[in-house]
C-alpha cells in the first residue's frame, strides 16, 4: 500500500497542518510516512503545499509528480494538481473557492463547500480538516479514528479549545465522502 497525497492552498488555510495530522495518524498506525512542504521566502497568504506519503514499505522519494490523491483548497491548486492525479485516484475540491468542475472521469472527485461549512461551524480555518475528513474516508489511507487521536495529541496548545469543532469538522468531511 502506498498513498501519495498533496494538500495545497494559500498560506493560512492550514494545508501544512492537515498534512501533519495525517502524518501523525499514519505514524501511529505503524506506517512509514514522509511529510514535505514546499517552502520559500516567507509571505503571508502565499502558496502553501505539502506532500504526504504513507506506505507499508520504506519510502524512497518523498516527492511525486503524480499523486494518488489531493486536496485543493484554492483555484491555483486545482489548476496545478487536478490533471496530475493518477487514474483511480481521489481529488477533494474546496468548492467554496473553486468554481470549476473536474474534467477527469478516471478519478473520484469529492466537492466540498469547505470554507462555507467551516464558517457555519464557527471558524473559517476548519476547511482543511473538513477536506481531510473527506480524503481519509474516501481513500481509507488511515482510519478516521487515527486522525481524531492525532487531533487529541497534536492540536497546538493555543487551539485546544477548538478540539471539539475540529472533530466535528472532520466528521462533516467524512459524511461528504460517504454521501
Amino acid at each position: 500500500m502506498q498513498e501519495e497525497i498533496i494538500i495545497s492552498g494559500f498560506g493560512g488555510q492550514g494545508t501544512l497542518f492537515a498534512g501533519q495530522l495525517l502524518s501523525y495518524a499514519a505514524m501511529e498506525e505503524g506506517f512509514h510516512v514522509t511529510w514535505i512542504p514546499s517552502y520559500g521566502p516567507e509571505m503571508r497568504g502565499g502558496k502553501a503545499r505539502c506532500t504526504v506519503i504513507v506506505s507499508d514499505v520504506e519510502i524512497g522519494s518523498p516527492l511525486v509528480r503524480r499523486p494518488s490523491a489531493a486536496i485543493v483548497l484554492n483555484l491555483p491548486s486545482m489548476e496545478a494538481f487536478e490533471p496530475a492525479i493518477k487514474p483511480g485516484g481521489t481529488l477533494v475540491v474546496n468548492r467554496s473557492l473553486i468554481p470549476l468542475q473536474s474534467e477527469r472521469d478516471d478519478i473520484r472527485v469529492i466537492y466540498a463547500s469547505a470554507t462555507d461549512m467551516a464558517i457555519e461551524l464557527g471558524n473559517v480555518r476548519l476547511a482543511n480538516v473538513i477536506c481531510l475528513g473527506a480524503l481519509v474516508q474516501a481513500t481509507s489511507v488511515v482510519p478516521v479514528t487515527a486522525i481524531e487521536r492525532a487531533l487529541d495529541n497534536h492540536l497546538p496548545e493555543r487551539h485546544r479549545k477548538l478540539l471539539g469543532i475540529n472533530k466535528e469538522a472532520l466528521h462533516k468531511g467524512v459524511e461528504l465522502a460517504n454521501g
Partner: protein
Amino acid sequence: MAKELWEGNAAIAEAAIRAGLEAFYGYPITPQTEVLEHLSHRMIELGRVFLQAESEVASINMVYGAACTGVRVMTSSSSPGISLMQEGLSYIACSEVPAVVCNIMRGGPGLGNVQPAQGDYFQAVKSAGHGDYHMIVLAPSNVQEAIDLMVLAFDLADKYRTIAMLVADGAIGQMMEPAEMPPLRPLRKPEERGEWALTGARGREPNTITSLYLGAENLEVVNLRLQEKLRQIEANEVRWKEYDTEDAELLLVAFGTVGRICQTAVREARAKGVKVGLLRPVTLWPFPSARLAELAGQVQGMLVVEMNAGQMLQDVRLAVEGRCPIEFYGRMGGVIPLPDDILPELHKLEAAVGAG
C-alpha cells in the same frame, strides 16, 4: 524511546543536544534556520551556551574559540553562510581542534535560492577552505540518518580532532519523518577535556593552539601529520549503503535526498525487470571508492544522479578508472529529480551498454 514525527532541522538540532553539545553559535539563514531556533530555547533550558552571532564569520570563530577549550561545539548554516566560514574552517583544521558544522544546502551560486540542492559537494569535499585538508563529510538521506550521523559527527570530530560536517539539503531539513532520538548523554566534565585544550595553565606548561608555523619545513611537518591523519580516516571511516546490488547489472550512485529518490527509481525499474542497484555514499569524504571500483567489475554501467552539474561524478570516475561506462543526470537551481526523470536515463544507459 518511541518514534516521534521529527522535522529534519529540529531533529538535527536535538540530536546534537543528545550527543552532548555544550555550545552553539550560529546565524539565521533559510533553509537552516529551524536548527538555530530549536537550539535557541533547548540550549537555554538545559543551561548550555547558545548565541546568535553577528555573522557566519563570527559564528565559526566563536566555534573555534570554544573548540580550543575542548568543549563540544557546533554551528550550522546554509550554502552562502558556509562560504563565509571557509577561513575559520581552515584555521580549525590546521589547529586540530574538534568542531561540528552542519550545512543545509540550498541552490547557488551566489544568493541563488532557498530550494534544496547539492551544489556544495565540491566545497565540502574538496575545498572547505585554503590549504591541504579535508573535513569528514556526512550526508544523510532521511531524518533518522540525520540524527544518527549528527551524533557520529561529534564522536568522529573528537576522535580525530578534526571538523565533521553534516551536509543535508533543504528537503531533508524541512521534511518530517518518524524517527527515534538517542538518549541524552551526560555532558563532558571539565576534567575530561583533552590534554591539549586551553583550560588554564594550572600545574602544567602552557598550551598553545595556533595555525601559524613559520618556516617551510615546520609547516611541512604539520602538513605531513595532517595527511597521516586523513589516511587513517580514509582507512577507518568510509560509510555507504547499498540497495539491490547483489545481482545488479546497472548501478545508480547518488547521495542525500537524491539517494533516497533513487531507491524509488530502483524499485520501479526492478518492477519492470531492470536489474539495477544503488550505492549511496554516506560519507562523501572519505569516499567509498574501493567499493565502487569493485562494483565497476560487476555492473555494465553506472548512472550518477545529483542535484548539481556533476560534482560527485568526478569522484565516481576517479574510483572506477574507466572500468565501466558512467553516465550522469543532474538537476540544478533547486530542482529535485524525481523517479519519473531518472527512469528514462536508466533506460538510456541500459540501451547503451546492452544490459538485461
